[in-house]
Every structure is written in structure tokens, then in C-alpha cells.
């Protein structure tokens, strides 16, 4: 029988994620990334470095891209959080469809973060230039694709008038 660890600084949290409200109790030291993945079971948001360096954990907070590994959930309690699970309805989001069609993913591990960074851009700039797309994705690392198809996919989604 393993003894339970001491309760350390747990706190109740109310989080609005993808339009739903969640109430959880989690250690105060847990990042938004950990709470999303471990406490809410939303594993679509990925961890690649835990230091804000790779962009894999990008989510939207009130529509702005943020690195979930650098955010404490207590900071964002009253805000709208969007993760990759919140992008698609019955059909894929146009950005998701464009990523599929253009071969903009290989292993797919950076993809959720890329999609959300791109969504924030297109919400702000529906017809971005290539430079603007590159800038919006410049904080997201991908080791598989060489980025070119990701840029094409974002441009194509913009072209198609992303919803």
C-alpha cells in the first residue's frame, strides 16, 4: 500500500475550455498545460519542452496564442481557452482540412500548436502575406516538414476564407 503524498498547495480552479466550464482541484504549481492534459484529459495539447521554447503547447486565451506550459491556470480562470479539441465540429476546421490536404503534417506532434497559432493569425488577419504567416509560426518548431507545407496550408485556408 502506497501512502498518499502530503497535500501541497492544492487549489480549486474554474476553467472555461472550448466553451465548457470545468471545475478542478489541482496543485498550484501545475501549469495550464499539465492541468489541461492531466486533470481535464485534453491531451491534444502537446508538451515538447516545458520551457516555452517549442510552441507545441500553444493554446488560445481569449483568441490570443499563449504557451500553456508558461501559464498558471489561476491566471486565466475567467478567460476563454481554446485547444485543438475545440477547433473541429462535425467537420474539420478549414485550417485542419488544409493541413490534411497539403501534407502539412508528418508526425503531427507540433500540429495542434501550429493550428492554433495559425487560427489566431487568420482571426486577426484573414488575408495574411507569406511573411505574416511565417512570423505567426516562427515560435513553433517542427522537425518533420520543413515548414513549407504548413505555410501553404495556412495560405490556402486563408484563400478559402477560413470560417
Amino acid at each position, binding site marked *: 500500500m*502506497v501512502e498518499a503524498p502530503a497535500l501541497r498547495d492544492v487549489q480549486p480552479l474554474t476553467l472555461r475550455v472550448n466553451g465548457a466550464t470545468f471545475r478542478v482541484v489541482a496543485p498550484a504549481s501545475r501549469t495550464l498545460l499539465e492541468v489541461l492534459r492531466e486533470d481535464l484529459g485534453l491531451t*491534444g495539447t502537446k508538451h515538447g519542452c516545458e520551457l516555452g521554447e517549442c510552441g507545441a503547447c500553444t493554446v488560445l486565451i481569449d483568441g490570443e496564442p499563449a504557451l500553456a506550459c508558461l501559464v498558471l491556470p489561476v491566471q486565466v480562470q475567467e478567460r476563454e481557452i481554446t485547444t485543438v479539441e475545440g477547433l473541429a465540429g462535425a467537420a474539420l476546421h478549414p485550417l485542419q482540412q488544409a493541413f*490534411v490536404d497539403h501534407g502539412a503534417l508528418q508526425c503531427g506532434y507540433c500540429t495542434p500548436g501550429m493550428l492554433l497559432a495559425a487560427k489566431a493569425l487568420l482571426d486577426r488577419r484573414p488575408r495574411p502575406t507569406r511573411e505574416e504567416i511565417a512570423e505567426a*509560426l516562427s515560435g513553433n518548431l517542427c*522537425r518533420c516538414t520543413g515548414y513549407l507545407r504548413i505555410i501553404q496550408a495556412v495560405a490556402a485556408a486563408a484563400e478559402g476564407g477560413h470560417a
Partner: protein
Amino acid sequence: MREFAVIGRPRPRPDAAARVTGRTRYAGDLTLPGQLWCRLVRSPLPHARLTRVDTASARALPGVAAILTGRDLPTRYGILPVSQDEEVLCSEKVRYVGDPVAAVAAVDEETAARAVALIQVEYVPLPAVFSIEDALRPGAEPIHPSGNLQRAVALEFGDVAAGFQAAAFVREDLFFYDGSTHLPLEEHAVLASYAPEGTLTVWSSTQTPHYLHRILSRVLQMPADRIRVIAAPAGGGFGGKSDILNHELAAAALSRVTGRPVKCVLSREEVFYAHRGRHPTVLWVRSGWTADGLITALHLRTWLDGGAYGSYGVATTYYSGALTPLTYRIPHYRFEGMRVFTNKPACGPKRGHGTPQPRFALECHMDKVAEELGLDPVDLRRRNLVAPFSTTVNWLRVTSCGLDRCVDEVVSASSFLQKHRRLPRGRGVGLALSGYLSGAGLPVYWNDLPHSQVRLAADRSGRVVLFSGAADIGQGSDAVLVSTAAEVLGLQPEEIHLVAGDTALTPVDLGSYSSRVTFMAGNATLQAAQRLRALVARGAATRLEAAAEDLVFAGGRVFVRGSPDRGLSWPEACAAAEAACGPLSASGAYTPPRLAGPYRGSGVGPSPAYSFSACVAQVAVDEATGEVRVEKVWLAHDIGRALNPLLVRGQVEGSVYMAVGEALLERQDYRGGAHCGPSMLDYKSPTVYEMPEVETLLVESVDPEGPFGAKECGQGPLLPVVPAIANAIYDAVGVRVDEVPVTPDMLLRALDRQRRGLDARVGPTVAPPASFGPLTRVPRPEGWA
């Protein structure tokens, strides 16, 4: 030419929708009830004797379930039978900063981390070595009992001395290719679950579930049939997840001790310690030439800095010489190589496995030769190209080879001849060629079983399930396999359900490494699908009162040739066959032909087919800052046949990307054995800004043994890009940095030397000791003598 319905058409991968919606479950996304978290205690010293590992206070911490140390897991292991030098947890000494000494399982990750901090380890520091020269110095502290020279090889094919004697011109050069790491976005993760009835299930981000299965059985001393390994979709591999790593074995052992599932996810820092990446390699090349630019002899020496353990390194050592004669007709060849232990994380296979370094050296060397001979780099290479369906001097069987077409395509698309030596100072173009394996001819452990096996099952609903042991690491192998089966059965790829990489359900496949899956698992799938089609044809023929050989499988139907109305839907045909034959299943297997030459070490290099690539890179050099910008890369790749051009182009672009990183940015840097920056910020990899435009030119040589004529594309296209960039830098500013990555400081030093009228070269000047041991003389294959 036969028209294909699925093959050759660009189409999204069937698993893409799951990946863009966050539904793909990577190993780190999995959770089981009652799960514990594992963390490893790692050495802060590069080389030390362990005198005490005190776990008492950690064990007393509430929430800690178990702690293991080296003594608990005494079996040594290693991926290659010749180097069984690893322990799950070090028992007597540590050999690099990051070497694991203890493993903790606790109820959550925070508690596991606190327990790690409470474990007291006493070390007696030993002298440590970090360079090839220091490791080989007499009296150097041996890292392993056999000493620091792990393996030396010296092979001569033909008579190099005679070849040099016949030469009108001889040149030699020294190069250095620094180490780099795979840096997959996904940190390695494992979830192990042991059940009291004596069974163990392990989900891991592995490229090689079969090899993990074998080593788990050995290290845990459990019968293999009690162990099930499931390769979760890997979030990038590039070779880094093809070795068996400590955390996979530790988590499994902790699960057995506690009877609870145990999960371990490496931190990014730990991924740098797990490593198994590119070997830092010193290379010396000497070549002889006739006056009109034909090679008379080539002598290559390689010194590989292996890090602290063997890993795949003996194979890497042979690879650093084996594929050099693949692209050019070299009549006499001597290869000498060695791998040396140092107190750094172990090197292993990274995309191109041991061949990017000699390719860099050879292609830069050839440009220098061309200049001295007054030939252009294209011309020099064209005069020496290897011929299709020939045998190289080191006994490699070359079959299909579209290298000449690759050169034509890339030179013409890039306007190389109009640009080379003609662009304004600061901009330049460079050319390089290469070749690579479509799968290694031999497995990593000796056996005569098929390398890839596939089972197909179908039932009256029309449902087809493909069972394959191959692991998709992002390269799209799942897509290749279902497309191959779909083509044969007249279905769409989305109609083939796939069960992959699960040792309990799928027949053995050796894994996703050496660019082997398309060729080998593809061929196994092709055979299984043809056999399943024959079964279904038998049932359908009876129903349709036609001869089985007159049936056509297309568009989801089975019908009589010439009378599309006389037919059955696919489910009807399956039902007819099930009625006639019972449960429908078929299997296929692929074993590569025996191609090894008559010498020790000849198992490394042979492949059933080789891909070939040609690359032109165009760069802009900023002489004020020393920065190099790769503007565009043209890459022609002989793929045999592109089964899915969308995925092939993706592999080419990804290879170019990774090569740009190795050419200009990426370096595993250590000081005093400590990694200088084990983070994604400090380890510089290309962002969207560093990525050049890429023009991919696919050449289809239609290989006689490849599935539908296909060959590899996942690794080969990386190889020529690095030297093409180096050659382009020379074309731009007239200086040679004979070392990669070409960093701004090196380039500025070379430019400074140029301004001061010195030899405008920066790079290694002294080769390490040439103690390669006795030379083995190998007779040349027929046709060479």
C-alpha cells in the same frame, strides 16, 4: 505502362484527420487507472565510480511506491550483439552526465521528482575524456574494460597503391562533421503495465517495437510471449527512438515490482542525454585521378566520437565507409575507420546513419579536385557516375539507378552552369550527389527469418484489416501499407483498416529504421494482398461462373474482364469467398536477397535497392556577419516510383530542412562533459525563417524489386544537401570551411584569412592517430579485375 488507381497519386495520409484534431494518442497521452510516475536519477558527473546509492529517505517519502538501483537489474544489454555494454541503471560507474543510476515510481510526477532529489549518490570522480585524441592517449582512463577504442576497421578493395600510382593527380583533404541530435518534438515516453498473471504490456514511442520486445525479455528475464510491446505513434524519430533506452526498461521493471502501471516521460533535457544522434566525425580523404578526371583510387579514413556506449555504433562505423563507392565508379578503395568511447551521451543512428559525414567530405573534396583539374563540378561527377545494374568495388549490388537523370534534372532546373562561378560575390551555388539504402540487408541480430511480415484479413462485411509490425514515426508508413493493399484489392486506402506495431497482434517487422519500411513491409503487403485477392477471386469466380484469372478488382468491385456489369461488390465477393474458403486471411513476407560480400563487415552496406539524389543549393553570405542564408534548394531524388508523391515530397522537404540545420546551426556542444544547452532554445534548430525554398524533382527509375518499383525517400535526400551548401559557400565567397556546422565565427575567420592573403580555409588541420589495425584485403568483384 499499367495504370494505377491509388499508387502514384498524391493524396492525404489516412491518419491525417486524427492528427489534426488532437485525437492521435502518443505514448505520453496514455493513462491507466492506478498509474504511477517514474523519474530517473541521473549522474551529474561525466565519469565516476559509484560508491553508495542511498535511497532510504526517498523511500520514506509518502507517495513513493518503489525505487530501483543498478543492482536490481544486473543484465547488460545493447542493440547490437557485439556491444552489450549498457545497464538499465548504472551499478558500478557512470560514464556521462545524465547516465541513470536510480529509478523512482511514485503516485504523481511531483512526488517522483521530490524522491529523486532525496536520493543520495556518492561518486568518486574518474578522469574523463571528451575528444577522440584524449580518449586514445596512452594512459587514458578506460570508459569500458576493453578500452576506449571500441572498434577499428581497415579494408582494402583492389590495390589502392597501384591506383594512386596510375593517377596523374592526387589530392587529400581533412574534414570535421560535428555531432547533432534528432530533437524530435515529442519527448520519449513509455507506459508499462505488469499484471500479476505474469504479463507485461509496454506502450512506447519507439521506432523498433520488435527490438524493444527482445531486450525487455532479456533484461527482465521474462519469456517473450508474456510481453506485449505496442509502438505508439511516435512524435518524430529520425533514428533517435530506434535504440532501446533506459527509461523504457526501468518503467517496465518498476511496474513489475509494484504491480501498477508506470509511466515515464523524459524531460527535454533528458532527451538530449538519451541522444543516440550523429557521431562527431573527423574524415580524411585522398583520391587519385587521371588527367581527364576519372577516379583511379580513393582512400577514406573516419574517426567517430561515439560517446559513452556502443549503441548502433559498430554499424555506424562501417556505414561511414560502406556507401562511399555507391555514386561513383571507384576502381580501388581503401576504407579505415574507428569508433572511440568518450564521456558524453552515446551517439547512434540519425537520419542517414553514418553516411552524411563521408558524403560531406567526398562531395566537398570532389569540388576541390574539379577546380584543380579545370573541370566543372557537374562534368567531373558525370564522368565517374556509377552505372545501373553494376557492382561496386566493395561488393554493393546496384540495381535501378537514376543518378544521371537526377544530375540532369537538378542542374537544369537550377541553371547551375549559368550560375556557378558567375554570380556576384556573396552569392553562390553548390552541387552534390549521394545514394542511400532502401533498407539494411541484414537485421541487427543474426537470424534467417523474414525482415517484414504482414497479415491481411477480410470478412463478409467487406472489412479488410492489415496487420503489420511496422511503426509509423510520422514518415507515413501506415499510408504506404494501406495504399499498397488498396491498389491490389481495387479499394481505397481509407477502406483498409490497420493494426500496426503491436507485438501481440502483428507479425514481426524489424522496425522503422534504415529506410526499410516502404521497400520491405511494402513488398510483404504486396504479397499478402495478392494472396488475399486470389482467395476472394476463387469465391467470386464460382459465384460469377467465370475463371478466377479473368476477374478484375477495381473501384470496390470484382468483375469479369470486359463485362463490368458481370460482377460483385467487394463485400459480396468477400462473402462468396468466405462461403467457399472459410475465414479469409492471407500473409506476406519479405526477406532481402543475400548480398553480403566475402569479407567481415560486409553485412553493412548491402541493400536490395539504393535511392540516389542530386542537389543544388543556392546561398547568400553576409560577409559582415558571417551569416549564411540558404535561398533555395533543388533536390532531385530517384525514388524508384513515388507511391504517394505528396508524402514523398514531404520527406524530401523534411530532409532538406534537417540538412540545413546540420550544415549551419546544429551542434551538440559539451564543456567538461556537461551539455552546453540541453534545451530547444540553446540547441539551435532551423525555424520557419531559416528554411529555404525547395524544388523537388522526382525521378522514377522503377526498381525491379521494389513494391511497384518504389525505393526509399526518408533519409537519402538529406545527404547531398550539406555538402551542396558548403560548396555553395565556397562559390559565393571563395573560402572553405571544411567543417559543419558552418557557423558565422568560422566563416568570419576564413574570410579574415582570405583578406590577409592566407590559405582561405578553416577546418581541422591534424588527423587523430591512424591506428586502424591490420588491413584486410578483399578481392574485387567480377568485372573489376
